[in-house]
């Protein structure tokens, strides 16, 4: 099972300069966003603490979309992923 992470500009230097990071999941069954992110951390460990707090929660001004759906509306980190899912990590529209 293969997944693609879309890495936002500010984090690309921590992901080897890549805009996309493809990860392979050994199990062939559907997994969760949390499991998928673990594969991303294995490939790009420095990205983890920029996306998650030390409580393991997605930072409040970061959004994660799986195949176009914000995981906040789909079960959070327990939201399902499927073979071929595109997972976007994006900064929220916030600031001043």
């Amino acid at each position, binding site marked *: 099972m293969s997944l693609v992470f879309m890495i936002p500009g*500010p984090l690309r230097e*921590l992901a080897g300069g890549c805009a996309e990071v493809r990860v392979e999941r050994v199990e062939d069954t559907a997994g969760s966003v949390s499991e998928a992110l673990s594969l991303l951390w294995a490939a790009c*460990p420095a990205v983890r603490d920029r996306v998650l707090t*030390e*409580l393991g929660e997605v*930072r409040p001004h970061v959004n994660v979309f799986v195949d176009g759906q914000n995981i906040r509306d789909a079960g959070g980190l327990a939201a399902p992923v499927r073979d071929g899912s595109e997972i976007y990590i994006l900064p929220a529209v916030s600031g001043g």
Partner: protein
Amino acid sequence: MPEIRHVSPRDGDVLLLVGTMKGAFLFRSDAGRGTWEMGGPYFPGSAVYAMAYDGREGRHRLWAGPHSMHWGGLLRSSDDFGQSWTNPEEANVKFPEGTGAALKQIWQIIPGRDSEPDRLYCGVEPAALFVSDDAGGAWSLMEGLWNHPQRPRWNPGGGGLCLHTILLDPADPERIRIAVSAAGMYATEDGGSTWRPSNHGVRADFLPDKYPEFGQCVHKVVQSRQRPERMFLQNHWGLYRSDDRGESWTDVANGVPSDFGFCMAIHPQDPDCAWIMPLESDQFRCAPEGRLRIYRTRDAGASWQGMTEGLPQTDAYETVLRDGMAVDPLSPTGVYFGTRSGKLFGSADEGESWSELADGLPPVVSVKAARV
């Protein structure tokens, strides 16, 4: 992203570390402090509440705690005056599992004493103190303060529940004072294992009990290096002096237009001399009457004089936040402050006269001064 300029300080130069809501800047001058050049912006877009210069053991190390609204915060350092910065893979200041806390902001970085050249301290929000004993590589939570039985009853001020002041007693390596808004000042005599509140005589106008054991909204505390018993405290309403390391506090708001304010600095050689910037009320929080005045005492708070030469005296509705003022170690002492409207002022004669060093910066939240 903006083009980043760099400065190249030489030995003996004065360096200002200026943290803003949208990045950090460096200002360099020779010891005359007449002209300044600017470097930055570093970490554009990130709020930088904490900066420090570590010149111990021949280092020329800058520290900054940039915090991105999106990607969080961590400590970064530079050994080449900002041309390159560390960017640790793992966040270096983080709450341990089991605390149930997550870092919101790094508020203060303080190099340890000269006798402990690899030690640094870091104050954060939610209010906690971290320490490093390997020159900033690994950091650990000081659990004596975190587990203090009064901590669950601390309440956040407008800036959050932040540990913003760390005072290392120059005469006793076991003594540390910290200040938290709004918990007040706490003291340890055993290097941080145990802590007790140290607010006797400090008012809390916003509580039914005006003189509680703890819960004061202390904005800044400074301590004399020559006479460590001498401290000054700028409170959320109230201006105080202590002559016993904070065991007791005496009101010294004598002749100031307001005893509300945030920032404070003490003379590096003269324990009777300090600077403040009074603000008009805790509602407006701007320079009284639109006149930007820094007040200085030379008699330990018995009297304060407004210093105005070179500062705008009409329509100057400026605010200087709790870490927005600093002094350099030269003689005469240089005094510097940055405002929420992005102005940076400096005085090379202890506040007698002022020059505008910069305008148009993002809102300034931190100013530190050092001699390279």
